[in-house]
């Protein structure tokens, strides 16, 4: 026994929340390619039972994020130059270690969580969710939906390292005494953050419930 809106021919609007009847509103449908697109009766936004191409888009964004994950972590993200000393370059991880050994351990923990743990957890969780939809898993639906929600919310916090870098580059401009410049990993890391955010935005958690529903029959 299902009480899902789509199974009853109802489409909820993602913009205004109005629950529309897919068939009755057919009169206001416009044709995009082969499939007719139904528009919300109240706000006029296009209606979809599920986010369009959700799985394919999520997988594509995830794949791109995986590719950039390695350079983001292995290349230097900040290059610091000081008068009299050799220029040094820091990766994300060596930056964390420097903070830790320098006695700034709370900051080390913040960066460790935001820059290393969160991107890794997002990639892992989203990959797991995509696989579980493909396999038609019906276990721990509530838990998986909550995990998705968590991943969607914490995603933006990975930007901390980018902003810290931007502030340092903007402030420490005392050539030749001291200067900071961004390393190539900044581009890769920024791209990983954006791509994982796009991946979680394009994933539709309702597919988890559809897959379980299909298995139950």
């Amino acid at each position: 026994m299902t009480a899902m809106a789509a199974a009853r021919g109802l489409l909820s609007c993602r913009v205004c929340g109005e629950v529309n009847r897919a068939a009755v509103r057919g009169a206001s449908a416009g044709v995009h390619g082969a499939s007719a697109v139904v528009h919300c009766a109240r706000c006029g936004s296009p209606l979809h039972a599920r986010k369009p191409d959700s799985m394919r888009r999520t997988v594509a964004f995830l794949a791109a994020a995986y590719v950039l994950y390695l350079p983001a972590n292995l290349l230097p993200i900040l290059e610091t130059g000081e008068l009299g000393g050799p220029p040094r370059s820091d990766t994300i991880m060596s930056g964390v270690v420097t903070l830790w050994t320098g006695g700034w351990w709370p900051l080390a923990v913040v960066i460790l969580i935001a820059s290393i743990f969160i991107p890794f957890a997002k990639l892992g969780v989203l990959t797991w969710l995509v696989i579980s939809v493909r396999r038609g898993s019906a276990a721990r639906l509530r838990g998986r939906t909550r995990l998705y929600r968590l991943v969607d919310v914490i995603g933006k916090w990975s930007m901390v390292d980018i902003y810290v870098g931007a502030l340092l580059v903007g402030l420490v401009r005392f050539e030749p005494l001291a200067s900071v410049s961004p390393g190539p990993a900044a581009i890769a890391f920024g791209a990983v953050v954006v791509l994982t955010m796009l991946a979680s935005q394009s994933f539709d958690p309702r597919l988890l419930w559809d897959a379980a529903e299909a298995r139950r029959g």
Partner: protein
Amino acid sequence: MNFTGGPASNQRHIPPSPRIRPALPRRTVATLASDIGSSEPRIPALLACPECDLLQRVPADRGWGAIACCRCGATLCRRIPRALDTTLALMIAAAVVFAVANVFPVMSLDMQGRHNEATLLGMARALHQAGMTIVAMLVALTVIVMPGLEILAMLWLLVPLKLGVAPEGLQIVSRTLAAVRPWAMVEVFTLAALVSIGRLGNLAELHLGVAFWAMGALMFLFALVDTMFDEHVLWQHVAELREGREP
């Protein structure tokens, strides 16, 4: 789930709630007329969960706050009295604070008699000059453009409603707002500024600028709006406004 047809129709003809008229001489009674919507928050009677698609009736007489899906716990809608009025007030404050945050420096650094300060835009410009134009654009978008658009879209929608007219371009602005909100990262920037204090404090003499505090204040204003603003309530009100005018 006991669901019997006509979902879209039964919520569209709710009569406007009667205005309370205390037994006092009219001149001494403050009018409610300038509120956006009735003071009782209106929410749709039937909703589908955005995360698990479960259809559910929303009880009309439960208290205030966010209403959660009974199956997966996602927020369905928010029932907060005067949410749109309060959002408007917070967003006017946010507009002022945002302007301040963009004009003044976030921090400044003194080193051996030399002084250097960074504004939000200056920060992005420094990245651009260092050859990282893409990263500069990402920073400028998430710290300046997206929060600015969020404030602008909110004011665009709420100021006309406050004046009792439906906003122009309602649909496009409302969709832009929904698209922009996840990318405004004021709170993340505030955390990053705190981290930077730690990293720079022992290197040179660091002074916090006005924009540092402004961004902190903006973080709280946005957080407050996030706890009460709900597109469903906005659209519900617009639908009522149109119905009240057109027939």
